[in-house]
């Protein structure tokens, strides 16, 4: 009897969305604690650690992603309101944005073209098919935008989603080291570079560094989403013309 009770109790637990919601939040809290224990080492990004932890639990328990997402969607759902909320720090730092607007505009163009051309030319150069490099082209834009672009230019949106999120994690883990290496110290420049190259996940990292870095990362993410939507089709057409 008690064994039956236990089994039905476990079945109930696995079926309730609350369990997967709690797992998501709990894994992130553990990840943040580990990150802080290691002096906030950027390579041990809390988002990446939490994803790894959740994947481990899902694999061990044989839980499908669909069942997990039934609970986790409540966290996922807050992404939209969080992006809207970025208007608050943007408003607070309007003066600084206005003063550096010229620099940001040039950097947007240079960064966006670098992101698109480097990924397309490298993927092509390493001998991959057209489908992969078309899916790779919009990877630095935020997922909703990059998937829409991929669909329009003949890439595979699901593949682009994977590449986009991988880009975000790569940037969140490595951007701090690259910026240190090339001697970029100002918060606004660091944040802008993180948000432009690797959208939301690196923006989350930037907000942990400093509010100004986070603000400029959010700004770069929004601007680069729009710039990528405009430039990817143009650059693909240009590359096709020159062969």
């Amino acid at each position, binding site marked *: 009897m008690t064994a039956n009770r236990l089994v039905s109790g476990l079945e109930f637990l696995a079926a309730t969305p609350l369990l997967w919601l709690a797992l998501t939040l709990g894994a992130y809290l553990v990840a943040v604690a580990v990150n802080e224990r290691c002096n906030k080492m950027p390579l041990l990004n809390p*988002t990446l650690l939490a994803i790894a932890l959740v994947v481990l639990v899902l694999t061990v328990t044989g839980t499908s992603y669909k069942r997990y997402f039934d609970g986790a969607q409540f966290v996922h759902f807050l992404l939209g309101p969080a992006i809207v909320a970025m208007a608050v720090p943007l408003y607070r730092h309007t003066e600084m944005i206005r003063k550096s607007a010229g620099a940001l505009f040039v950097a947007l163009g240079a960064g966006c073209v670098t992101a698109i051309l480097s990924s397309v030319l490298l993927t092509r150069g390493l001998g991959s098919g057209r489908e992969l490099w078309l899916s790779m082209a919009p*990877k630095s834009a935020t997922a909703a935008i990059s998937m829409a672009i991929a669909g329009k230019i003949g890439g595979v949106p699901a593949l682009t989603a994977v590449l986009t999120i991988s880009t975000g994690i790569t940037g969140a883990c490595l951007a701090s080291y690259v910026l240190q290496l090339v001697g970029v110290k100002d918060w606004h420049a660091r944040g802008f*570079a993180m948000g432009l190259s690797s959208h939301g996940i690196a923006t989350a990292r930037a907000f942990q560094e400093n509010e100004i870095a986070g603000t400029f990362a959010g700004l770069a993410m929004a601007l680069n989403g729009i710039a990528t939507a405009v430039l990817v089709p143009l650059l693909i057409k240009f590359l096709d013309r020159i062969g």
Partner: protein
Amino acid sequence: MYAIFVLILLQLVGESIVQVSGLPIPGAIIGLILLYAILVWRGEIHDEMSRTSGFLLQNLGVLFVPAGVGVIAYLPMIAAQWWIILLVLLISVCATVAVTGLVVTRLSPRGIDAIEATVRS
């Protein structure tokens, strides 16, 4: 409640605008622009809005966990070409970060750090 209601309402308005106009921009970014316009118009940030946005943005990292876990489910899709993808992402992301960071630093007016310092305090 007030702040979270406003954030969700503005995203809803943004999504509706995208549906009607067919703009290639997520509804949340339209919502961001609308909230910014409201803040400019009112000339101040409501206390609760300041706290709620601070809370969401400080914990932004957790909001990407569900989507990130989803990526793992699709990993077999890239299994055959994983080393090409890894190499391209590493080089492309580092190059983009370096170019963008250097351009902003070189072209920003001198003294912008002073503004940073006053804003931060």
